[in-house]
């Protein structure tokens, strides 16, 4: 299916120019046209947003400690649950993704980003059905985090067990 080159073209037709760029040339070409994104600006945005989310988390935790007399450790789980609920609501409203575009890792790294990835996958695949769509795809993005976390925890647990057995 090689394209017949310009030789067959009528008069005035642009001569067919084969793709002459090598991969290297293309990369240089594409790089020059990429929007310039400063690493520093991105890092600053991530710092401010991520810090703010943790600050809010600290506030919620202090509230649980003050209102229900919980220890910092006991307050951890309800704090995370509240943050997840807020994140899912913001995802439903389409707000979280807008913030995320500005904040980058600042919204992805906190636990709210984990919830956002699950909620958006659950909503996005809803049209394929509750079981195959929502149920099957909810962990599409979050799954790798759980898999690697669990495997790492297992290996570390086994190492601790072996240390305990030997010592």
């Amino acid at each position, binding site marked *: 299916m090689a394209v017949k080159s310009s030789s067959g073209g009528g008069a005035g037709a642009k001569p067919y120019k084969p793709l002459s760029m090598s991969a290297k040339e293309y990369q240089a070409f594409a790089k020059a046209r990429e929007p310039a994104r400063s690493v520093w600006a*991105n890092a600053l945005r991530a710092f401010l947003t*991520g810090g703010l989310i*943790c600050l809010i988390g*600290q506030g919620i935790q202090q509230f649980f400690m003050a209102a229900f007399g919980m220890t910092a450790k006991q307050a951890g789980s309800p704090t995370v649950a509240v943050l997840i609920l807020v994140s899912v609501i913001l995802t439903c409203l389409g707000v979280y993704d807008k913030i995320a575009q500005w904040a980058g890792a600042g919204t992805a*790294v906190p636990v709210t980003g984990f919830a956002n990835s699950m909620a958006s996958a659950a909503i996005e695949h809803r049209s394929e059905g509750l079981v195959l769509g929502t149920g099957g795809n909810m962990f599409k993005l979050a799954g790798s985090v759980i898999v690697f*976390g669990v495997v790492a925890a297992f290996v570390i647990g086994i190492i*601790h067990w072996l240390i305990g057995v030997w010592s």
Partner: protein
Amino acid sequence: MMQYLWAFLIGGGICVIGQLLFDVAKLTPAHTMSLLVVVGAIVDGLGWYDPLIKFAGAGATVPITSFGNSLVHGALTELQRDGWIGVITGIFEVTSAGISAAIIFSFLAALVVKPKG
């Protein structure tokens, strides 16, 4: 008040590490998150995550690294209580609240909300 300051600084700092992994190391978000979770798990395996939580509060418990920390924490707690089988049974002990909440709220969201665009 200091607790809020440290939560902001440490939490923000962990997010900066994630951003640098995006921009400088050119990792995908999935790779970055997986890496951070494993790092959190290793740090807790060495016994350093608890001091960080004492120091930074939510700055250490809200980022995803804390998920790795909680997985290891559950495994080690039940390891001490029940022996080697605890490593398997204990992994989700502490993280149950986070994962369950995320599943339940996300499912309810999918029932109610229509996808946008």
